């Protein structure tokens, strides 16, 4: 996996809100538009994101009656 290309995408994602919005909707198109060349493994990685990971603060459990 070419970290140089992926690193460029991360830099773009960090600096450009427009890229962030587009990457969330269509990551492959966003990468193409940014002119970043990715191999098939990297392209697959772009669309394999689970946006609903269960990482969250747990609310207090208050047993009441």
């Amino acid at each position, binding site marked *: *996996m070419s*970290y140089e290309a992926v690193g460029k995408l991360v830099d773009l994602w960090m600096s450009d809100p427009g890229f962030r919005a587009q990457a969330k909707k269509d990551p492959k198109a966003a990468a193409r538009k940014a002119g970043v060349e990715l191999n098939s493994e990297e392209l697959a*990685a*772009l669309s*394999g994101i689970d946006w609903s990971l269960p*990482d969250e*603060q*747990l609310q207090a459990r208050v047993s*009441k*009656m």
Partner: protein
Amino acid sequence: MTATTTLVTLTLNAAAFDRLLASNPNLKAALEENAEILRIAKFLKQATPFTALDAAPARRLAARLQRLQAEAGAAIVTEGQAGDACYLLRRGRVEVAAEGRTLAALEAGAVFGEAALLTEAPRNATVRALEPCELLVMRRRDLLEAMGSGTDVGSRMVGLLRLRERPARKPGVVAQERATADHDVIVTLKDPARPAYFRLSRQGWFLWQKLDGRRTLRELTLEFMAAFKVFAPQTVSDVLISLSEAGFLDGGRLRGDILHSLSRASWWQAALIRVRRVMEWRLSLHGLDPVLTRLYRDGVCRLYTRTGQAALAVIAAAGLLVFAAGASSARAALAGHWSNPTLWFILIPAAIAGVLIHESGHAFTVKAFGREVPSGGVGWYWFGPIAFVDTSDMWLAGRGPRIAVSLAGLYAQAILAGLAALACRLLPPASLLAAASWIFALGLYATALFNLNPLLEYDGYYALEDLLERPNLRRRSVRWLARDLPRALRAGRLDGHGAELAYGLLALTYTAAASALAGMLYRMFALGPLSQVLSFRAADALGWAVVAGVAFISLLSLAQELAG
């Protein structure tokens, strides 16, 4: 330029204008200053965190910013020093370095030094001019004013901060790993100082272990991609922001004034917060755990042995059978006692004892699983008084123990109801005590059923969220319905979110049903008596106001879950 209406123009040729300026140095200076402010405002509108500013606030901000020139090689900010300003690079290039390592080169339009404005932390890097630079200096008061303009300048600045910082785990946080019912691994973090809890997925746990204060979001994203084969800067960023907001990261905490400015609630959020504060009022008693631990060790633990549990199960089952078998004859025997005030002198303390035993059931079951009960107390929950115990420490336990704790209060109540039903059977049939025992048992069984309703945040709700392995089920479902349902409908698949869909729809249906029920109860019991006092039309209108009020409060509550 083409005139679209008849107009009159005044003309000043360049030579006359130059003569005017030459003879009025003050006018010349004022015009130049104004032109410069307009140029800075235009620049601000192009610089990322300020693009959302309207023209007037942008001009006001531009007028307040100081201009600074830096020679090549000059340090603009120095690592480790305190700072109260951030910088916008207008012309030139700068180099960012920390701990002797070059991190980045920034060009015109970049913003740096924002961490010192937003947090109490010292400068985390040195920024040096690579060539002659022109900068704009923004002080905290300028930022606060820009944040007060109603745009998202503040959140954009905080976003910028989060993207650049090197997050570190808060010391003292303990982690407990366990397998879920579908064989996934999750980790629960506990900050014993507060206490607060945070649930991490396998991916979140991977990130947590990397948060040593040396990696940026860029490095974390690359390592995440190497481990999980996904490009997920948004996911990584979301996890970091959630951890930071929950107070699980060290340093980088936003300053009070910034936080206050960011968390300004809309009118309806502020109204709901006030309503909830009154309707969900609590008086907490801290330091309960040592007392409960001693009581558990000194005797209560015997109830949690096999023999003890078998005996309690026999009482609960036998009592329920006796209650069900004697229901029809008991009702007739009660008839003569309703108007006896002594009955209520017995029932009121008995009801209080019932509540205490219910809460003790939760608390001692927590102790039986070796966890803590940090607090308990009394309060008011929407339509009536409550007693409560905090069983949050069970987040560190597995699913079975959590369900057991959630249902332990109801079980204790069922045992007490069983004892009351058995007492009713043993006492003389028409006696006052027999009547009180039967009413007491009935009340306990009825409130137990009410408590099992998973659509209200009582014991049944916690048991259901544990059963489904969906913490924060209510919030999660409401948010999923509002944010992800359209996407799921377009894709034609739920991707494992069936529980969120079902619970969210049931919660909405319940809101409608609760409003209708409130209206029905009003018409059955209140409309008649109130019609005697008010006119029928006024009493009827009041009924509709009750229905609208219940619906409004329920919907506001759901909306607050959505807004977070």
